[in-house]
């Protein structure tokens, strides 16, 4: 009996811990949103983060998108040729890239690059008293550290996804025309034929939400890190893992909101 109670107790305390952590994240997010609209603002910090998150993530997002588009074209062709539906390759590539692969792959790649960097930087600031120093210098750490990163990531992820969409479709086009011997003009016509604004917009909305999640989780984990180098390492891992999971969860939620009939 005691073993059963201990087992159930373990499940209960685990559930409470998850709920408490979720509550802390929500409160942190609300604080970040609240301070986003209240002065003082730090435009230099925002500009720095836009460059850091947007510009320096371009190569990794571009490479991911172009190769994903190429693979998608190849896989679609080999799969569809089994039931003579090769003509749908261009449409499948553009819809998959704009709706799913563009935002999700860009989100996951940026989560790995930027989420980890944010958590490590803010975590190091926490364990070396730099965040306390901000407070003693009458500077709100949420405003100075968290808001610029969250706003920058939310703004630049959609821009990165536009680039990913274009390069992903281009990757499919290159494979389609150069390797699978589609007619270039026909391929482009098929690409545009079934593409709707809703497909692109849903991807951009996802990107903005993913950007918010990546920066928020990086800031949250870094801000609450403790215990020196080990704590910063744990914060970095947690930031990437939690952001990646949340990206996949919210990907489903947003897809449901846009496309469920």
């Amino acid at each position, binding site marked *: 009996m005691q073993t059963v109670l201990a087992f159930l107790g373990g499940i209960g305390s685990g559930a409470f811990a998850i709920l408490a952590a979720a509550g802390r994240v929500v409160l942190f997010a609300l604080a970040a949103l609240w301070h986003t609209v209240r002065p*003082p603002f730090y435009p230099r910090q925002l500009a720095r983060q836009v460059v850091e998150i947007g510009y320096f993530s371009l190569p990794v997002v571009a490479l991911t998108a172009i190769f994903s588009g190429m693979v998608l074209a190849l896989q679609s062709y080999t799969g569809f040729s089994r039931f003579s539906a090769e003509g749908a390759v261009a449409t499948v590539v553009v819809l998959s890239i704009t709706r799913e692969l563009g935002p999700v792959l860009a989100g996951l790649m940026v989560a790995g690059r930027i989420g980890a960097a944010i958590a490590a*930087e803010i975590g*190091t*600031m926490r364990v*070396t*008293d*730099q965040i*306390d*120093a901000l*407070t*003693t*210098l*009458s*500077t*709100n750490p949420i405003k*100075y550290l968290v808001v610029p990163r969250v706003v920058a990531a939310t703004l630049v992820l959609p821009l990165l996804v536009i680039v990913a969409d274009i390069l992903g479709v281009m990757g499919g086009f290159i494979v389609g025309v150069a390797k699978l011997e589609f007619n270039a003009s026909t391929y482009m016509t098929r690409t545009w034929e079934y593409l709707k604004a809703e497909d692109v917009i849903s991807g951009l909305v996802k990107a903005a939400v993913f950007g918010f999640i990546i920066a928020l989780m990086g800031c949250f984990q870094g801000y609450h890190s403790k215990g020196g180098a080990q704590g910063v390492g744990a914060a970095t891992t947690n930031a990437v893992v939690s952001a990646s999971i949340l990206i996949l969860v919210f990907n489903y939620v947003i897809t449901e909101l846009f496309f469920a009939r």
Partner: protein
Amino acid sequence: MSEADSRPPKIRIRGLCKAFGPKVVLDRLDLDVPAGRSLVVIGGSGSGKSVLIKCILGLIEPEAGTIEIDGRNVLAMRRAEREAINEHIGMLFQGGALFDSLPVWENVCFGLIAKRRLKRREARPRAIEILAQVGLGPEVADLSPAELSGGMQKRVALARAIAAQPDIIFFDEPTTGLDPIMGAIIDALIVEQVQRLGATAFSITHDMASAQRIADTVAMIHKGAIIWTGPASEMRHSGNPYVDQFVRGSTKGPIRMEVRR
């Protein structure tokens, strides 16, 4: 009675309590910090010194008690009021807590720029003036904190602490990690700058030589409470067995360190 003695205390602490789980760190602590004087709190590791200073600075919230600065209870203040109080406070952190991402001159003038009291183009020359007050040349201004030695980092941190010409300056273990000569130099700079500004100084240390050099008054904290207060000149023959043991660094006496053998 001197003029300083007749003034109400700059900082008045009454009944301050703080515990982390079952561990009581501050236990109904009472302390007065005289205006315009230098008070040093001495005590062993884990005696509550750092928690005390963090409570006064608003970095940790105590469970009970009052902390008055200039007669106003800072624990009952709203965040904006507290930030206004912090504008008149300087803090030298144990590890310096300089901002890695900013050059030395921006570190020094961070508080002035953040509060729009100084434009960026005016800040660099001002920072060079302040650096000169702590014995550093203009060539240091554009370096990153990581390029400085430990002693130079402490001096830059001191420059940042005095940049806004504060009424109260806190020093957390100002000589920790420095060789005895550099420790003495930092102590001399602290005394010089505190006297120049006419500020109230509150320091915590377990370096007896440093305490002797910078203190007008010494208070000893043990198990979260102040157990002795007196002039610095009486510290070495206080008649208090706890103070005597601590000053001598003896293993024999009423202070029992939590060491397992």
